[in-house]
């Protein structure tokens, strides 16, 4: 396999260039657009050369958009904040609920545990609207319709299976004797969990948390169905923004850049865990 000819190397290089072009060009292009004025954007043919402007970002961050038709309020920063809040809270709750359960499922083979684990797994694959549409009908009756709490609860559908299955795999990889030894040394169960099990499963917990955060952030349909206007995350907010702002394409591009930057950075940071996380622990990276 090491005996590659020059022609082969050229073809390989060419193919890889095409691949990179297809997958990275859209991100690159939108990034450029976010620094262009509307006039630059509308220019035909499109050009790589223009005077960059921060105007789009300023408008988004200040929350006011001045157009010929008048001033327009933009709630985009609020959407960004909602995304941060919803994603972190959801991961936090999923960790509190999921890590002890993952430990229980890994250490004690019990019927109920398997049932819970597989119910959550199967709902990871069920159509989300099946749960969301009925919920939308009685969310208000439960007093959850205009709260973060309600959304965080529903987001467990995304975060909990991820935490549960990945972290469980890490707990299973810890030899029970290491915990037994610590108990015999004279430490309580709770301390053993804290000082032995959690630190040893830390890479798994970190990976699962990052991924859960990314997936919560990227989620669209949950908030589309259930979130009231002032609780919407960026995914829903950006779509609403496109409709509301009409032809303010520069701001749309800037909004897109702001929406995807956090997850892209996290993904780069967490990339060595992604394989395992994406396959719910079925494939080890």
């Amino acid at each position, binding site marked *: 396999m090491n005996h590659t000819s020059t022609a082969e190397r050229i073809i390989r290089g060419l193919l890889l260039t095409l691949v990179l072009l297809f997958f990275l060009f859209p991100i690159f292009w939108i990034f450029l657009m976010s620094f262009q004025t509307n006039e630059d954007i509308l220019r035909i043919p499109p050009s790589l050369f223009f005077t960059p402007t921060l105007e789009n970002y300023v408008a988004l961050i200040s929350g006011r958009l001045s157009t010929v038709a008048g001033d327009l309020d933009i709630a985009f920063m609020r959407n960004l904040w909602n995304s941060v809040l919803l994603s972190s809270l959801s991961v936090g709750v999923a960790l509190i609920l999921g890590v002890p359960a993952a430990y229980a499922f890994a250490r004690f083979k019990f019927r109920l545990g398997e049932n819970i684990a597989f119910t959550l797994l199967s709902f990871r694959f069920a159509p989300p609207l099946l749960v969301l549409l009925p919920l939308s009908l009685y969310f208000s009756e439960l007093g959850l319709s205009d709260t973060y709490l309600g959304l965080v609860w529903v987001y467990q559908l995304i975060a909990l299976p991820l935490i549960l299955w990945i972290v469980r795999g890490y707990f299973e990889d810890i030899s029970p*004797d290491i915990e037994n030894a610590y108990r015999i040394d004279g430490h309580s169960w709770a301390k053993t969990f804290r000082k032995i099990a959690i630190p040893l499963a830390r890479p798994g917990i970190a990976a699962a948390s990052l991924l859960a955060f990314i997936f919560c952030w990227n989620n669209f349909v949950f908030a589309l169905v259930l979130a009231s206007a002032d609780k919407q995350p960026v995914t829903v907010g950006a779509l609403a923004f496109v409709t509301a702002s009409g032809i303010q394409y520069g701001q749309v591009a800037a909004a897109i850049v702001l929406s995807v930057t956090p997850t892209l950075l996290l993904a780069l940071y967490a990339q060595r865990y992604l394989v395992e996380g994406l396959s719910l622990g079925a494939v080890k990276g």
Partner: protein
Amino acid sequence: MTSLELNAVSKSFKNDQVLSGLSLSATEGETVVVFGPSGTGKTVLLRLISGIYDPDDGDIRLDGSSVVGIAPEHRGIGMAFQNFALYPHMEAADNIASPLEARGGTAAQIMEKVREIATLLKIDHVLSHRPKELSNGQKQRTALARALVAGPKILLLDDPLRNVDAKLRFEMRLELPRLLRDFGSTTLYVTQDYKEAMALGDRIAVLLKGDFAQVATPQDIYNNPVNVEVAKLFGDPTINLIETRLTVADGRAQADLAGTTVELGTGYDHADGRDIVVGVRPEAISVSETPLEGALPVELIAVTPLNERVVMLLHLADGTEFFASSPEDGATGTRRHGPAFARIAPDAVLVFDRDSGQRIHPLDAGPQVSGQQTQ
């Protein structure tokens, strides 16, 4: 004073009965080696005592009070695991300090004790290393240090030399008895190496099929095994076993070994006519070229040195294989292959019932049943 007591302890997993009603008691400071082939429940036994498992039935008492249902952390036991079970995210020093931390004390006091035992076990230079930076020998010593450091009344060692190389095993076999004596803990030591068992145990408890077949001093187990199985587990090469029938004439028992009548001594009147298995340790057989009184005619097939002894493979007249061993320097020029004569020391013959495998003791004389016997 009795420090550890097991009363009719049973444990099964699913439908697999691992331990069936075994009992044992160990006095303070004593080292009892639990010996048996793999899969007989030795490790399960230690786990019952340490509280990792609970027994289905029976009682476990430490210093006179029952510990059944008491969590492991409240039993004050020290234990070293076969796979070491070191905490991979902690330095060796913190590994060793763990039992001390659980018991309280200032950081300085703890550190001093850790240093002390680390020096004793010659691992003081690697205290700041993580387990994965330690050699197997150092891991094993760290695990041992962790088990010993708090001076536990009961020390459980689960085949601690299993995963270390031969040289280290030899060293530790010499070092351990003194160490255990110095610490004064009552020790239960699990192994499946009979030499280790004989070297380390004040007593050996032979665990077979979920129960102790025999609990006795090493010498006693070797010289007076209660049954064929126990006899076979000790000695290298293993004991020679020949099926035959016991007859008594004039109060003297005899058995036919491949056409030659061998004297078994007196006191076997009650066993006249029974099918038996005769057991003879290889070192109880002397081989010579000249026919001695009562010697068996044999064919010397092969000679191999084993440690300081030589082992001879013999064939009896009917072709039965037989091993003899003698000290190297006692060799008399009989080492040529071919016909020879084997003489069995009469008081060294062990007689077992052929069907049950149980030892048949002569009734009148002899230092027979010693040690505790349960069955």
